[in-house]
């Protein structure tokens, strides 16, 4: 009979209406600013510069190679290479970015800068509340504002950060082994020839 579907539909919406007052489970809305869902580990929004240790200037991993600047599709990164060299976190003298700016309003969160960085110096942050009243200065982040500690990286992306740390440690170990081999006395010729072979085998 005509109208049966309408009556059934009205019953359904009435059930929804009254049910929403009695069953909390029906209202799935998360009241955002007050309530928040836990962040997903793979979330990403805007890049930051990782530094090791306590001092952001001293521990900055970035060596101003400018690959990310070249690769950035919307060209939101601006890097000026330093003239001098400074010891990095491992004590090795390196160039460092005299200027490192990223424009929040231009960045499209593509993560390509992270993919191309050979030094694991730039990573994606999860903070997404970047709105500001100052649309010029407030949206152009300099290197101090971009710098965040490795601990912060561990906090937001634990799995990824652990893998990066392991890879970096392995690389440092490899370099140290090479250095040891180079510094070793020439009398131990036989073991020194086998050492690079094993190192290559491991790599």
């Amino acid at each position, binding site marked *: 009979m*005509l109208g049966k579907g309408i009556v059934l539909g009205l019953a359904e919406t009435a059930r929804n209406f009254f049910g929403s007052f009695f069953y909390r489970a029906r209202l799935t809305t998360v*009241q955002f600013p007050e309530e928040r869902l836990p962040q997903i580990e793979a979330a990403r929004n805007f890049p930051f510069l990782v530094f090791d240790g306590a001092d952001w200037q001293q521990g900055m991993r970035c060596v101003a190679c400018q690959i990310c600047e070249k690769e950035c599709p919307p060209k939101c990164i601006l890097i000026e290479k330093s003239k001098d060299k400074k010891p990095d976190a491992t004590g090795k003298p390196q160039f460092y970015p005299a200027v490192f700016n990223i424009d929040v309003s231009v960045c499209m969160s593509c993560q390509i800068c992270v993919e191309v960085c050979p030094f694991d110096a730039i990573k994606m942050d999860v903070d997404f509340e970047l709105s500001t009243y100052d649309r010029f200065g407030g949206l152009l982040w300099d290197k101090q504002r971009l710098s965040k500690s490795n601990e912060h990286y561990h906090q937001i992306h634990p799995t990824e950060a652990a893998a990066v740390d392991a890879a970096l440690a392995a690389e440092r170990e490899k370099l140290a082994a090479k250095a040891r081999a180079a510094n070793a006395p020439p009398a131990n010729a036989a073991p020194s020839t086998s050492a690079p072979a094993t190192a290559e085998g491991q790599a």
Partner: protein
Amino acid sequence: MSIFMLHLHAWIHALASSALGHALWMVVPVLVVFPALFAVTTLLERKGLGRIQNRYGPNRAGPWGLLQPMADAIKALTKEDVVPEAADRLVHFCAPVLMVLSAFLVYAVVPVSRTWVVAPLRAGVLFFFAAGSLMEIAVFMAGWSSRSQYSLLGAMRALAQMISYEIPLVLSAMVAVMAAGSLSMVEIVRRQAGYSGIWPHWFVLTPWGLAGFVLFLIAATAESNRSPFDLPEGESEIIAGYYIEYSGFKFALFFLAEYLGMFAISALGITLFLGGWSAPFAFLTWIPSWIWFFAKLLALIAGFIWIRGTLPRLRMDQLMRFAWEFLLPLTLCHLFVAGVWKFFPTGAARWLGCAGVLLAVYWLLGRRLEQSGGLARRTYHFAE
């Protein structure tokens, strides 16, 4: 000082008995109460629709979102008023004004309480429909003057729909006029304000009255362009229909007029079938009559919101078929049943007989509508 007070007193007396006093006393409340009701309704509607969809609805502006209408008003008033370059500026400006004007005009004949009716015209129902159809002109003015395809399509849809549904609307309203023997809305309410025992003499409590009320509500929904008959402003098809080229305050005026139209047509339904301001039981007559009127009005508004939250929009051909192949024959039969009602002796047999005839006609017409493919999926010969 006392002389001044005396003068003031006399002046107030003179004012109250003058035409201006009458206007102030009767008209100003209409101009205040119904727009206020509009503000409340927008909030209630959004809240109710939210709950129907298992959401909270607006709850940010003020406690429980109570200041939301205020925020909406500020937003509408501070928005830029954009008029298309190719538009007919005068008509474009007049359309929302005429729309609000016609929406307010019809309240003149609505008896809100025992004593509160602005103009107790003897042909009140006629005036209501005549003034109400000004709205159709306003809609077409808006659609035509904007010089936009979407507006024009929306306006043409609106005109086709409003004219088609005006016929069942008027025919279903006629039964109440026939039963009361008067076109005066005050008289129609007075005829329903009596009681048998505790039960009122509302027309809705008779089979033809109930059927008339339902038919009236369906036609009223279409007439006030509300879901599921909101084709003139179908967002998914023609964006906003005839008021697509309006922004800011003019858009707010359209919005206001639409809701005022809905209240007015609900008020007409209440007057014709639900006993206007009269109490539902004889022992409740001590409650002021205007409270009953507004209680019934709010109940009908809740019904409109409920229906909006339930039914999807009709297709244009379904809409037309429903009006001409279903509603019109049904209202004609219904008019006949209501006419012969008087000539049968009072009793259960008359009640059941009338209800049976109406149900049989409803069933037959409904079956025909379903079988003729009027509500079925449409096959397109060229578009697919």
